[in-house]
């Protein structure tokens, strides 16, 4: 089991009953394959199943997040950490932020 903090912002929280911050325990058995490691690919599935209450197409497109969503692992763009293959560690903080266009 891995304890993570998941955050949703920029409007994505509306998909999770308007709750922005979620402290979750992700059970390793239920996901992941390679040596019991939890990678972002697994987490996206877990989020879609467990947190997203409506319009999953506003969160995912194919196997990754939809265009216009920034993914941050411990305040760092997931593009710098391996995107879908980024390995997560206990107490990591993952944020999903929809980019804003208003002014």
């Amino acid at each position, binding site marked *: 089991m891995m304890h993570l903090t998941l955050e949703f912002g920029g409007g994505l929280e509306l998909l999770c009953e308007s709750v922005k911050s979620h402290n979750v325990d992700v059970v390793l058995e239920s996901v992941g394959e390679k040596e019991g490691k939890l990678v972002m690919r697994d987490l996206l599935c877990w989020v879609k199943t467990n947190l997203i209450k409506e319009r999953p*197409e506003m969160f995912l497109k194919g196997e990754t997040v939809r265009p216009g969503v920034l993914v941050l692992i411990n305040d760092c763009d997931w593009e710098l950490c391996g995107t879908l293959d980024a390995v997560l560690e206990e107490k990591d903080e993952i944020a999903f932020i929809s980019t804003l266009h208003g002014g």
Partner: protein
Amino acid sequence: PPYGDHGLSKELIYRYSRHLLLPDFGIQGQANLLNSSILVVGAGGLGSPVALYLAACGVGRLGIVDNDIVELNNLQRQIIHTEAFIGKHKVESAAAACRAINSTIDVIEHKGALLAVNALDIISKYDVVVDATDNIPTRYMINDGCVLLNKPLVSGAALGLEGQLTIYHYNGGPCYRCLFPTPPPTSACQRCSDSGVLGVVPGIIGCLQALEAIKLASSVGVSLSGRMLLFDALSARIRTVKIRERSLNCDACGENPIFTKKLFRSFDYENFTETPIFDLSCENLMLL
């Protein structure tokens, strides 16, 4: 440049004395500002504080572009406009406010929309561009124009109770397309006119945009390039996150960019983003 030898008049030394006293800014920073030119695209919620603070601080030439007319429901957040200007062009209203604060700088009015056909001509006249617009086709267009003309872009956005801020195409950092190569689905694009915005949220983001533009124009401090500021008003939480590097595959700033000036001028940004540049307001109210 007229202030290249720091030849500030007595009056300007008095006007900007609080800047000149700053060891980290001083007369060189002020001279740089006075010799600089900044374009503010959008005279709305973000553009209001951007234009006011840039005018006040002494940016030598300040351009303002906007196509809109001042409406009563703008005044809840667009503090550069007053009731007396309702029905008039936002650019005229904003320029009048800037001149009233500082008659010694050059304020240029670009009345009308910034479009692919005119953007390069306008952007090319300025050193720094501030994106204070409210729609996604214009955001892609400003980005591509800034990359083509090699101008740094201070990009801010605000909606609801949140704001975001970063600098694109500066100092080897990423551009907007590096972060968002594919436009989001139209159902994910909201405007303030659709979803509302707490008036002071664009105020905060706009002031931070003005600061970053001033830092670029005066060559002072460390810019937000490569970092993005995320602001959540409800919790008063502000954090700065590290964003990706420039993408070598970027259509705009990569090693084999698809854009030429010619292609840019005829590129259909509304079609690319499946979003109209001009707000159809109530007709397209979306929930997310």
